[in-house]
């Protein structure tokens, strides 16, 4: 598996660190009423067999945070973009 960093081009997997599912959203609220949303955000995942949006950090490269779309059944990388702010 090689990831095409928008800055650095196609680089080996060893240069990247994995952060996991990019679709979970951090709750805005810190109130106790948001507890369920926080549990959901921290612990629960769709874990799809198929297309998966995920965060990778180019930690041994340019330090960009990337949002990679990858097929978890084949390891085929469909798309690489910069991670969006606020996620």
């Amino acid at each position, binding site marked *: *598996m090689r990831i095409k960093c928008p800055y650095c081009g196609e680089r*080996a*997997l*060893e240069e990247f660190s*994995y952060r*996991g*599912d990019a679709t979970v959203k951090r709750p805005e609220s810190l109130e106790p009423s948001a*507890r*369920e949303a926080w*549990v959901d955000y*921290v*612990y*629960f*995942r*769709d*874990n*799809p*067999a198929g297309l*998966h949006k*995920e965060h990778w950090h180019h930690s041994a490269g340019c330090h960009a945070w990337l949002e990679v779309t*990858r097929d*978890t*059944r*084949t*390891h085929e990388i469909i798309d690489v973009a910069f991670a969006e702010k606020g996620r």
Partner: protein
Amino acid sequence: MRYSLGSLLTNALTGNRNWKPVWREPEPKPNYDVVIVGGGGHGLATAHYLAKQHGITNVAVLEKSYIGSGNVGRNTTIVRSNYLLPGNEPFYEWSMKLWEGLEQDINYNAMVSQRGVLNVFHSDPQRDAFARRGNAMRLHGADAELLDREQVRKLVPFVDFDNARFPVRGGLYQPRGGTVRHDAVTWGYARSADQRGVDIIQNCAVTGFRIDDGRIVGVETEKGFIGAKKVALSVAGSSSRVAERAGLRLPIEAHVLQAFVTEGIKPLLDTVITFGAGHFYCSQSDKGGLVFGGDIDGYNTYAQRGNLPVVEDVAEGGMALMPIIGRLRLLRSWGGLLDMSMDGSPIIDTTPVDGLYLNAGWCYGGFKATPAAGWCFAHLIATGEPHPYAAAYRLDRFGLGRVIDEKGMGAQPNLH
């Protein structure tokens, strides 16, 4: 047929023509008391203990492929109970005790070999951590010995004791740990369950669940609808995608763990050894090959194969610990799918759907847990109450702050 010296002799003298198939291949009945989804080690062990300990025999085990085609046939066969935390250690020690009596219990040679498990350490702080772990084990009735350098040398003289970066200072040794022939575990539990009336139905994938007013009434399968009062999921590696069909979302990510075997060599390693400064664990099979593995690849995958960085990492760990293996050629490598849970510990619990039970989240440690997971899951299914040894493995522990985080990594499945 019961296996014994007599049955072996009789069959040998009659040209081995009279052996019978070890389990039946029945068509599914319309209804069962319990349907177990997943014919791996855990599912078959659950069927065995449901029948033997609880007298529940109107049971089907549904397997989408052939039994033992998943992780029970893909692991590195190591059994041990060297855990630290209270929620874990009693469970794994019970599993160790069940391994010790397994062959008599199921009348099947599973080649249980208590050759010991040796975790070497390389520094003073690591010695302290291992001494603490050994004490925790002994407090729960397991066996553990803290070995110094010379004691380790007696066990594994070929290890690189004077490695410049990671000199071996000693080891934590569990003499009762060892290896078990993984496929025989599958076959032995299957045979025992089948003899007690359990239907093992292979090539029968579950495609959906029928739920009526919050209660399970059966499963949709490739062979049609099968009614069931209770349904038990034991499909680690695929738990999320199976549970999704029952409307459940789990605290699990699917990952891959690779394993490797070398060409056969003369007897070299008569224990299980692990490297303390990287992730590498190794034993020698009866055919002579060194069987070893290391870290998971670390990204979500359902591909049952990994990538080269981990191959390199495992090889480096092996060479740092025992450079003697440097000229060996690898015969095979393969990957198995894991349920990496959010705290690195498993789940054996009821679910929000009445009558639907979940055994999942075994990370890369499911094989050693096979007997106790089957034992505790059967107890839960039969009585509706969690078994005391598995009471901490709750599905709702994540929201309650009762995580069992053996490695202290937090909610990062790829780091457990």
